[in-house]
């Protein structure tokens, strides 16, 4: 695998924007992990005497209407945003691979039924689907992850199915069958490893979408519930004070923008570097 990784890296590192995306993603990860170590205050600490202070040396990004330190809240919020992004995408990838594999490998009427189901799922505007389900299940962070996951797997399923269909006619698959390999072995050893490249790309782009969806849900008040800080609900709470305390909306908004951008740049860079047809450009 080494030579492949080297080859991939050679193409990937040529893309400056993708490198920037990668660096930002790693940076955000790092921040999320060490958040408790670097946060100057407890994110839940209410101090009414110090409410709505503009960014200054004691409160790097200012404080909110309850006097909580915005910088600390943002740091903790990054943990929520990233974990929602990753777990939701994890769920969606698992479902997508499962459905796509079954559909692509077995074909026939199973394929027809599963793919029509995918079509139906794709007909719903996903944000409204998420809204409805959250409204039924009740808003909390676990539900948000699950719902984002189960409403975003269709793209992955289609990609995996398409890869399987083209791989199925390759000689090494016939060779595996002639050897007497079982269906599970063929799927897990021969098909999936060769179908992972587009999955990786959709996953990376999916994290960006999931973070955005979470922020949107929290903004509407049905995502992560206060007092747990998430970028989305910090934004909502700050909305009321937008003319008096600009920092409450600007910084979380900016954080969301940068994170989503970083994941998108990384995802696009991966796609270009993994697809030999796009390498020349």
């Amino acid at each position, binding site marked *: 695998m080494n030579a492949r990784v080297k080859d991939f890296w050679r193409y990937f590192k040529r893309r400056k924007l993708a490198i920037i995306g990668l660096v930002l993603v790693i940076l955000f990860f790092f921040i999320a992990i060490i958040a408790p170590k670097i946060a100057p205050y407890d994110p839940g600490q209410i101090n009414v005497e110090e409410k709505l202070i503009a960014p200054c040396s004691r409160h790097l990004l200012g404080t909110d209407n309850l006097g909580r330190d915005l910088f600390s809240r943002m740091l903790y919020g990054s943990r929520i945003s990233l974990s929602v992004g990753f777990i939701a995408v994890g769920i969606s990838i698992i479902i997508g691979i499962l459905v796509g594999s079954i559909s692509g490998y077995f074909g026939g009427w199973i394929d027809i039924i599963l793919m029509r189901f995918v079509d139906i799922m794709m007909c719903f505007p996903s944000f409204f689907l998420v809204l409805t389900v959250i409204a039924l299940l009740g808003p909390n962070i676990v539900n948000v992850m699950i719902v984002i996951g189960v409403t975003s797997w269709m793209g992955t399923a289609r990609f995996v199915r398409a890869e399987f269909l083209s791989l199925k006619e390759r000689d090494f698959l016939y060779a595996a069958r*002639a050897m007497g*390999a079982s269906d599970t072995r063929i799927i897990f050893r*021969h098909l999936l490893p060769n179908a992972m490249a587009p999955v990786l790309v959709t996953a990376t782009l999916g994290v960006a979408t999931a973070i955005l969806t979470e922020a949107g849900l929290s903004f509407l008040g049905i995502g992560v519930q206060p007092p747990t800080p998430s970028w989305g609900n910090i934004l909502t709470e700050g909305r009321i004070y937008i003319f008096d305390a600009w920092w409450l909306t600007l910084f979380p908004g900016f954080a969301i923008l940068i994170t989503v951008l970083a994941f998108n740049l990384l995802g696009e860079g991966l796609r270009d570097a993994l697809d030999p047809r796009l390498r020349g450009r």
Partner: protein
Amino acid sequence: MSQDNVLLKVESLKKYFQISTSFFSDKKLILHAVDDVSFEMKDGEILGIVGESGCGKSTLARVILALYPPTSGKVFFNGINIFELPNKRLREIRRQMQVIFQDPYASLNPRMSVENIVGEPLIIHGLAKGKKKKEKVAEILEKVGLSADVMPRYPHEFSGGQRQRIGIARAIIINPKLIIADEPVSALDVSIQAQVINLLINLKKEMGLSYIIISHDLAVIEHLCNRIIVMYLGKIVEIASDETLYSSPYHPYTKALLSSIPVPDPDYRPHKISLHGEIPSPVNPPKGCRFHTRCPYKFDLCEKVEPKLIEKEKDHWVSCHLDSLPASK
């Protein structure tokens, strides 16, 4: 043909593919890839199957390997009809029947190391694991002319000839009886072709293998095979031992094929039998003898009645009407 030590027996095997023209039309087109093919093969034999591209030889190989389900017919391996076996038994049979593919770039999984590719049959059949598997893989790699150091490497690091050797190593590691090689050398350079052919011959001697070699290259077939089947449009037109076929071919199609072999002599002026026209579509094969549209000797019977495969001389089977022409030339 005698009944003793028959390794493989194919009985009126048919494989049709259905191609639907469009989603809205009910019209179904049937592609007759393999149409009523029967033959027998003895243990230790090297059987060649030749024909133009599109004559169904690769499909025939894949049906015999049970990679495609047959439309009808039977394939007996060691007297057992492989199409009637439950999956578990079929896998045991697969251990004795292996395959080598034409394109060494497509026949190896790009994400697996050589060790895992060659050792996979051992794992599947539970024959060896871990260190034992590694030893066995090293032994087989040396047998096919590669060194054991290539084990951790990946297929894209090798040349076509080396990859074909890896493919051969994978096929022989579980000591099969029969190897079906679908155009084993046609994707390789001429210089490498000879090496791979010699490797196949040596392995046969060493391991007591039987081969079915499928090729469009008559020179390769002549070099390797004891007995040859000539196919045209999904049907067998002639079966004969290699000496008989090359010295006294009977069927006009075989004659035409043989006369097309290039001779490395610039002064040689061959009497070429050139065939006119294209090979007809296997979707609408001609009535009567399938070759009549291009046959230089055709007469009225050929267009109406399909000739049967008859044993003309001992072990020389031909499917042609020319014999029954009253004033035979």
